[in-house]
């Protein structure tokens, strides 16, 4: 049985490290502000969001047809198309493709899907070395951690952390934490891998049904190196990545990097339609729980996600708890609504790692109602009995008291009122947690109810 993720515990540890949390909050808030600058600079921004949402909802409502159209066109372009029902099948297909060409070194660009499939350890156990070529993702690979953010995977680390990881792994000077020096060190270390690798792998930001092509967005150009230098290119594609037409790309590319990093576009927006002369190209269409999510009335909208990370950047909880505290491939608000579809028990805490403030829904370029889905996930967690005994029982008691004015008044105005009453009756033993870092509110000598009864007796009796 999977272990329940303890978001609170991980967040507490993260918060205790002042330099890290301070940087983390400010860096991501900075991205949110850059995003605002871009969004407010485009008159049709809100219209673009609405279009993007409609295009994605249309595609998902016709997904079977678009998948077939994509397959047909890609095949006609000379691409070999594979289908994987789950992570295990995905990994097996990748391994078969690589084995057939005797590939022992794979370079790859960032892909949340391959993280989801836990592909790296699978291939490494079978003698295939895998090198992540995105700088942030490489830092995380060398440090044996999951990406903590879907766009900036090592954003929870400071330069000193990176200097240490690099010194241990690629031989840079441990006392030199200048980011330019560290990035150059990684450039020198990584570039030879592109030349040696037998295959390159990319993820997929958009799969265009009309053209059978895959679009990948990076700032480093590492997807282009991975796909263009080795003879073999494999792209892993979640089936929800489909969009109908090339012209739809205009909508999504205009918003993706603006939402993610506050830049008008990524440095490289790369379109892979057919294998290069003398090379081979494989597309793997992966379900891994997506078709099941499509059937969930309230939750299929999360399949619209284009993985920009804007919801994480704006999330005040994410910024103060760090991506690793979510314990899953996807962190932040989007993680709170995607991870439970994989394993409700394990991720039952995530829908509660939110204040339901709604900022995530407002920045989402495809208008996913993220905070409303978080609210609904809480109901599922409660219905499935994953709330925990104390919380469940105290809610049951509070429900009874709040439904009964007499009992309620006995609680709020009885002989042992004050700190021992509301909202203690509502929230399980709250003042233990409340008082750790906050002063307690003082109950008034007289409730409003009592004041009103005394002052306005004649009106109340009407």
């Amino acid at each position: 049985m999977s272990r329940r993720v303890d978001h609170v515990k991980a967040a507490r540890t993260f918060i205790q490290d002042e330099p890290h949390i301070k940087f983390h909050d400010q860096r991501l808030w900075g991205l949110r502000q850059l995003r605002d600058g871009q969004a407010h600079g485009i008159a049709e921004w809100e219209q673009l969001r609405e279009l993007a949402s409609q295009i994605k909802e249309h595609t998902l409502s016709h997904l079977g047809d678009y998948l077939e159209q994509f397959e047909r066109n890609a095949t006609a372009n000379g691409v070999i198309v594979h289908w994987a029902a789950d992570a295990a099948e995905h990994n097996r297909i990748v391994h078969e493709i690589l084995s057939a060409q005797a590939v022992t070194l794979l370079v790859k660009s960032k892909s949340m899907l391959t993280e989801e499939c836990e592909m790296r350890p699978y291939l490494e156990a079978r003698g295939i070395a895998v090198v992540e070529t995105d700088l942030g993702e490489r830092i995380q690979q060398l440090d044996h951690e999951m990406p903590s953010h879907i766009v900036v995977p090592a954003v929870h680390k400071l330069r000193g952390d990176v200097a240490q990881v690099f010194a241990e792994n690629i031989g840079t000077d441990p006392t030199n934490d200048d980011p330019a020096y560290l990035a150059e060190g990684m450039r020198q270390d990584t570039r030879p891998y592109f030349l040696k690798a037998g295959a390159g792998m990319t993820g997929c930001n958009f799969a265009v049904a009309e053209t059978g092509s895959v679009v990948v967005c990076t700032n480093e150009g590492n997807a282009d190196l991975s796909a263009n230098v080795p003879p073999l290119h494999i792209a892993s594609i979640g089936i929800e990545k489909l969009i109908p037409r090339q012209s739809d790309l205009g909508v999504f590319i205009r918003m993706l990097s603006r939402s993610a990093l506050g830049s008008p576009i990524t440095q490289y927006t790369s379109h892979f339609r057919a294998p290069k002369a003398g090379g081979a190209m494989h597309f793997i269409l992966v379900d891994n729980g997506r078709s099941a999510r499509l059937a969930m009335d309230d939750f299929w909208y999360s399949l619209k996600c284009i993985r920009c990370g804007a919801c994480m950047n704006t999330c005040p909880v994410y910024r103060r708890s760090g991506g690793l505290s979510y314990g899953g491939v996807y962190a932040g608000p989007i993680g709170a609504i995607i991870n439970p579809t994989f394993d409700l028990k394990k991720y039952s805490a995530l829908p509660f790692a939110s204040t339901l403030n709604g900022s995530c829904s407002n920045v989402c370029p495809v208008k996913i109602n993220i905070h409303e889905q978080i609210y609904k996930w809480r109901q599922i967690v409660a219905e499935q009995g994953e709330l925990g005994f104390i919380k469940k029982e105290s809610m049951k008691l509070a429900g009874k008291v709040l439904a009964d004015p007499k009992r309620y008044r006995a609680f709020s105005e009885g002989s042992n009122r004050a700190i021992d009453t509301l909202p203690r009756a509502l929230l399980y033993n709250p003042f233990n947690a409340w008082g750790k870092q906050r002063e307690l509110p003082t109950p008034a000598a007289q409730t409003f109810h009592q004041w009103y009864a005394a002052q306005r007796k004649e009106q109340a009796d009407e």
Partner: protein
Amino acid sequence: MSSRDAILAAVRARQPAARALPEVPLFDAEYAGDLVPRFAMALEKMGGRWLDADASVPLATQIRLLYPSAQRFCSAVAGMDGFASPGADAAALANVDVGIVQAAFGVAETGSLFLSEHEYGNNALGYLAQHLLVLLHPTQLVGNLHQAYQRPEWRSARYAALVTGPSATADIEGVLIRGAQGVRSLTVLALANP
């Protein structure tokens, strides 16, 4: 049942009720005037450099002057005196100092350049070279990305990238660094005569 058929059957059984596909406007009203200043500004914001070519000096000479310490030039543009052309072997381009290509068109909104295998000769040239010099006819500019995706060049390209400035990363403490894995700099040399 194959996974393909199983996935398609599951998707068809579960996909929500049909929703309409909207028409996407071009949003091009603001791109009526001269696009060059807008392109140049967008390019520079993304870390690229815009230069106007001097019609009276041979291009190859101008390019050599731009990179005084460069040893190895490789040009995918025909007729460049004294520059090697990219061959089929990608790895052979790893020691190129300056790659020279000509973009099919540019996008004023973002400062992006359209480069495909037709422009690169060998796609790796755009990424393994240390620096990239991109020739561009200023007449070949479109306003925004919606317009860019209407261009005919996409149809014949196996691979095509909208390249916007040099390779960059901010993965270490948000510090912007040019030249993460790909080119360290990108310069657009605007051709004088179409």
